[in-house]
């Protein structure tokens, strides 16, 4: 069987899986009756509805002709990886992860790390320019978020400030 619209086909599959998962999860809670709904009632209803919608979308994707097959296209692995990595590393550095015995490195170190990792998402980055950008962002964020807005961040590494 030919997939007529790749995007719709996989969206439908996604809805079916997620809807099914929610519905299945909902059955582990008390369902109750219409008059006395348990915590599982509404999610079960919605989960089944979502799975049904997904099924219809998938079916249509197999039947209804589209121009050019509505392809999903190439995945942009490079930006995907570096942007998400920058975000995660920032979280790790900012407040540390006690469970893994990683100390908090604070806002400033985190900003340099985010800027460098995120910049790598695009080919052709240079160390010098990125370093300047990171410094500007670090100073700006310090003034805006710590001095002006008084947000509670660990600013410097915990092993220095104690």
């Amino acid at each position, binding site marked *: 069987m030919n997939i007529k619209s790749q*995007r*719709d086909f*996989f*969206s439908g599959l*996604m*809805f079916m899986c*997620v*809807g099914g998962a*929610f519905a299945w*999860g909902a059955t582990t809670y008390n369902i109750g009756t*219409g*008059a*006395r*709904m*348990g*915590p*599982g009632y*509404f*999610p079960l209803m*919605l*989960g089944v*509805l979502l799975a049904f*919608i997904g099924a219809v*979308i998938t079916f*249509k994707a197999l039947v209804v002709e589209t121009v050019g097959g*509505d392809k*999903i*296209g*190439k*995945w*942009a692995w490079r*930006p*995907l990886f570096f*942007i*998400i990595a*920058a*975000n*995660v590393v*920032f*979280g790790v550095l*900012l*407040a540390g*992860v006690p469970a893994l015995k990683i100390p908090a490195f604070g*806002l400033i170190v985190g900003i340099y790390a*985010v*800027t460098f990792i*995120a*910049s790598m*998402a*695009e080919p052709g980055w240079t160390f010098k*320019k*990125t370093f300047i*950008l*990171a410094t500007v*962002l670090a100073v700006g*964020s310090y003034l805006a*978020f710590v001095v002006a*807005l008084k*947000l*509670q961040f660990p600013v410097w590494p915990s092993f220095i400030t104690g």
Partner: protein
Amino acid sequence: MDLITNLSLGFGVAFTPINLLYAFAGCLLGTLIGVLPGIGPVATIAMLLPATYALPPVSALIMLAGIYYGAQYGGSTTAILVNLPGESSSVVTCIDGYQMARKGRAGPALAAAGMGSFFAGCVGTLILAAFAPPLTELAFKFGPAEYFALMVLGLIGAVVLASGSLLKAVGMIVLGLLLGLVGTDVNSGVARFSFDIPELTDGIGFIVIAMGVFGYGEIISNLARPADDREVFTAKVTGLMPTKQDFKDMAPAVLRGTFLGSALGILPGGGALLAAFAAYALEKKMKMKPGEVPFGQGNIRGVAGPESANNAGAQTSFIPLLTLGIPPNAVMALMVGAMTIHNIQPGPQVMTSNPELFWGLIASMWIGNAMLIILNLPLIGIWIKLLTVPYRYLFPAIVLFCAIGVYSTNNNNWDIWMVGIFGVIGYLFIKLGAEPAPLLLGFILGPMMEENLRRALLLSRGDWSTFVTRPLSASLLAAGVLLLVIVLLPAVKNKREEAFVED
């Protein structure tokens, strides 16, 4: 006239020097933070909320309203200048606004947005003042069945006006509703879908979803395009103010946008977002004048219409909050939070028990709008300078601000992991052509819908016909069905698809 006495009471409250100062401070802070790409009104308000705790309730709400308008205008600014909507309601502003900026007409685009918003804000305030009292009367007749029907209507409205496939939009709404249910169930105290993770028992943060899906998802898909696709500004910046012809073009668009926005803003779930989308669709359907720039290539009507609509909608979306106590969108949900902190229970009783607060807030909305335009028109030149910053420097900064913004809402690392996950999901949505805006709407309304469905069926002893036998609820649902039928009519369906085809 009641309206005059009420408004003068309000202005009496709002025009004290100290409250004017708070309104000004709110607008300024809101604009400054809202203009940072990736930080929309929700994040801005969330970040600045603690600053208002110490103020008296009226001043606190006035300042928050100022922050809201400032942030919203700031969001439109980033939409126009860097093609990054600070919030979902400025998504459509991106389409033509950014194209205008690329052609060197960022100044007129920003001015059109500002002036359109101001006009719409004035009208919206008047409508709010005129309709709030009668609607409050109506609100007392609202039972859970009516609330539920109203939310269904709101969601249908959102689907109808979403671009692309109807079915997919419905799917995204349901997905959003389900995501909204994650966390502790208020009735039974059972932690649903939380996988024994303590942070998840509080539910998924709205900001996390918004920033992950709209912020990171967008950046990734932007970077996936070849570099010359995005950052070429073909012409020099020419003139900061709109020309005479611009004014002629935008005036009717502003009027239409204001009207549409005021009407749609009242619907729960839609508010500013729905209004902006509808206004853009409407402008596209209007007949083109000869020599006018096509839509999607920098038509000033494509900026003025939606911007007026979203501001009028933002104004009238206070109506459901103040009269029914249900927040129509995420910003209003934060306002509810702020009100409860000050011991005010939003709902129909606010107007009678707290008239100073109620009318003071309404008056300060107008003041906020006025300050915004005074503050921003001279600053347009500065915002335009932002254009010269290449995307290469911008996107790491956006990632940083998203991460900081998310962290600062709860001071918890967990939110940073979640925003990463939703970044991946957001990119997936973009690849699959599934629009994320309806998801967000569903997410906000999920818990409220469940609550009201539960209550309605409890009262009717499990009889589902309660939704169609109660006249108010029945007419709301009928309106929803009518909307759906209209959209599915073949003639309208084709028109609708035409309206949403990009460029």
